[in-house]
């Protein structure tokens, strides 16, 4: 028997209804003779016979709905069929003996239309055999159509259960070509819609907010210059930050660069920061990557932009009871000082000369690691209790060491704390990373001889170093801030 399956009568139509049979079972039909009119969602379509022969069975009566690629009629198996010879130049049509139920759309790969409306194709050569494990897109067979020899790729990976035909056989478009073994929970493609073509389907889950992320506003790179001025500066080896711009918003024109050159400002040889590392001039030097590279860029930016002033002092922590959590006390002191003197809990945009003060304290904590410097941020630290802060600090330490800290927790600090004294060092000049305007450093605790009621006494003191950006804050504000830090640190509890 040769089964004729209902072809797709439109563009991805799932089924069609039998409107009227033009023949009856037992009739002998000619190729292209109209068999049946079928009603689709779009129109009534006449379905012609794919070949000549005797029709022995209808798979439905008027009003029945036939699914696309399911059997419509069956021809008598006429043993090589003379009619087919006329149609297919002597080549035998392959048996498409799939019973309707055997055609599970996931297991059986039907011959697609290899051109535009080609009725069939002849198997030229199989590239695979039954039992083979194959990959998606691996060529299954080369098929000869009326137009050309076409390689037919596999629609998915899997093991081949059956090949429907041998070299020289003709397969009708839409009839089974290859059957795959469906293993237990084999990945069964979801319904991708009745569609023209193929849509990529995956179960990958996107973890991303609908609105994306809000990038931090950075004061910018920065230096405004017309492109021609940049090129000239680059060619002349001039660092544009040393050129005074005379254009709108302080932008640098070609004339500005030329004037600078005339002043003998040429060839200072500071390469303009290019994100792609220029070839290192030190033989064998490895370009920095990742966090360490970011640190280098940020520090250079800070050095170019910020006007830093560092103030040093000590806090007398003699009154502290034994076992006081040093880090928590320092954090508490910073929060207290931010309330007393808000000017240092701020961001500054140097390009616009604009300053923003914050109500909440988002405290950046400088954490050292082999990879480089990390500054995770405790958001709104003023509203966390001591336990929560300790837990966060501990978590940051672990996450920094095993590189699992989420990107979101590494930005948005309004003020920064560097507790470098764990290792060594009394005072420092900590570096501010724009847009924030202050960083407090705590050095190594030490015993110090201090006057107590007119006599020398030995107290434990904590050395403090605060750097502030003098563009954004005054010396008065900074010293009041530091005084508040000390006041809070010197309390017993």
């Amino acid at each position: 028997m040769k089964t004729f399956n209902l072809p797709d009568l439109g563009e991805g139509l799932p089924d069609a209804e039998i409107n009227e049979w033009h023949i009856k079972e037992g009739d002998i039909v000619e190729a292209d003779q109209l068999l049946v009119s079928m009603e689709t969602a779009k129109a009534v379509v006449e379905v012609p016979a794919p070949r000549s022969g005797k029709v022995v069975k209808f798979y439905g009566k008027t009003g029945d709905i036939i699914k696309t690629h399911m059997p419509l009629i069956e021809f008598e198996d006429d043993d090589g069929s003379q009619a087919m010879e006329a149609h297919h130049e002597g080549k035998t049509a392959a048996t498409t003996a799939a019973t309707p139920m055997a055609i599970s759309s996931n297991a059986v790969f039907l011959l697609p239309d290899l051109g535009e409306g080609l009725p069939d194709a002849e198997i030229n050569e199989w590239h695979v055999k039954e039992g083979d494990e194959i990959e998606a897109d691996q060529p299954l067979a080369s098929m000869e159509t009326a137009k050309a020899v076409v390689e037919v790729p596999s629609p998915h990976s899997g093991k081949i259960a059956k090949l429907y035909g041998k070299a020289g056989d003709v397969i009708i478009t839409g009839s089974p070509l290859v059957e795959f073994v469906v293993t237990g929970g084999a990945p069964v493609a979801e319904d991708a819609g009745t569609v023209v073509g193929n849509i990529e389907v995956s179960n990958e889950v996107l973890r991303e907010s609908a609105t994306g992320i809000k990038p931090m506003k950075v004061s910018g790179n920065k230096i405004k210059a017309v492109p021609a001025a940049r090129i000239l500066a680059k060619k002349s080896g001039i660092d544009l930050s040393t050129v005074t711009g005379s254009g709108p918003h302080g932008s640098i024109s070609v004339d500005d660069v030329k004037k600078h050159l005339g002043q003998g400002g040429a060839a200072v040889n500071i390469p303009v920061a290019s994100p792609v590392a220029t070839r290192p001039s030190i033989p064998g030097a490895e370009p920095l990557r990742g966090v360490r590279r970011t640190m280098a860029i940020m520090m250079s930016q800070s050095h170019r932009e910020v006007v830093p002033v560092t103030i040093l002092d000590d806090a007398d922590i003699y009154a502290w009871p034994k076992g006081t959590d040093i880090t928590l006390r320092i954090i508490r002191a910073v929060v207290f000082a931010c309330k007393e003197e808000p000017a240092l809990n701020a961001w500054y945009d140097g390009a616009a000369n604009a300053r923003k003060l914050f109500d909440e304290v988002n405290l950046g904590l400088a954490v050292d690691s082999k990879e480089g410097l990390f500054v995770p941020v405790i958001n709104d630290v003023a509203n966390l209790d001591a336990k929560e802060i300790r837990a966060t600090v501990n978590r940051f330490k672990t996450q920094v060491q095993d590189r699992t800290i989420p990107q979101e927790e590494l930005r948005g600090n309004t003020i920064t704390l560097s507790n470098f004294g764990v290792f060594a060092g009394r005072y420092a000049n900590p570096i501010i990373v724009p847009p924030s305007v202050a960083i407090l450093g705590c050095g190594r605790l030490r015993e110090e001889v201090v006057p107590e009621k007119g006599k020398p006494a030995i107290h434990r003191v904590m050395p403090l170093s605060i750097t502030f950006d003098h563009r954004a804050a005054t010396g008065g504000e900074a010293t009041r801030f530091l005084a508040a830090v000390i006041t809070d640190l010197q309390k017993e509890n």
Partner: protein
Amino acid sequence: MPEITLVEAVTQALAYEMGADNNVVVFGEDIALNGGVFRATDGLHAKFGDDRVFDTPLAENLIAGITVGMAAQGLKPVAEFQFMGFIYPGFNQIVCHAARMRNRTRGRLSCPAVFRAPYGGGIRAPEHHSESTEALFAHIPGLRVVIPSSPARAYGLLLAAIRDPDPVMFLEPKRIYRHVKQDVPDNGEALPLDTAFVLREGNDITLVTWGAMIKETLAVADQLTNEGLSVEVIDVATVKPLDMDTILQSIAKTGRCVIIQEAVKTCSVGSEIAANIAEKGLFDLHAPVKRVTGFDTTMPYFKLEYDYIPSEARIKQAVMETLEY
């Protein structure tokens, strides 16, 4: 909460808004009984019935025409064009009537319509099913052109499009209809129709794209991040009106920009973005703006379509050239 695909997010948004607003009606070719060729309207007919979800004849001029009429008289029609390549018979209705309704009637009538169409290539379909002609519509005053690139944005932007009092072209990148899934709460929350979305934050270069090209662009951005670079990726999302503020702010920071689009190069949305950058961001540029686009030719048949659609390799090369400039 089950994670859903972009096309399911479209269905979810339609169902939500039809439940919330009886004036919303949905129609198009094969969208009711069949649920749409891509299943975007699956289940809506069963839920809301013949009056609100119905199949139209194969006549795009008619689809666009009745949309304009319904919208002008108080309904909120959401019309589907089966493929963007079939939209041109309705072009006259959209351009000459929908887009101008408010202006022509001096504000007495508006046209709160949504014209939905799957667009773009990459699904092995014939060429007139695969083109990206968003620029044709972005060029027309009075039309918004919206292109989502994730399930969550498809949901939020489609709700906003239906609620907007003026006509919106809602173009769905069919190549990524089912490419990823995402948790999309069915809470009726719309997204703004004039805002670009920053998907990756970085300092070295800005990649600007929209629609299905988000896929390759993010892949390249992630590769480069692994190589130590810091890449910002912006999903334009609303091709009209363009949120140039977000793009210019990013370029003020990075100084470098590559625009990636599937559409042909000439007179495209990418051209418009590049022109805006030249007008308003010139002093911030450290390198010329590059465009990675489809070619100025008819979309090829599927054997060649991935030679046409910008590949990760083409994007990466453009990014490296821009960085090394």
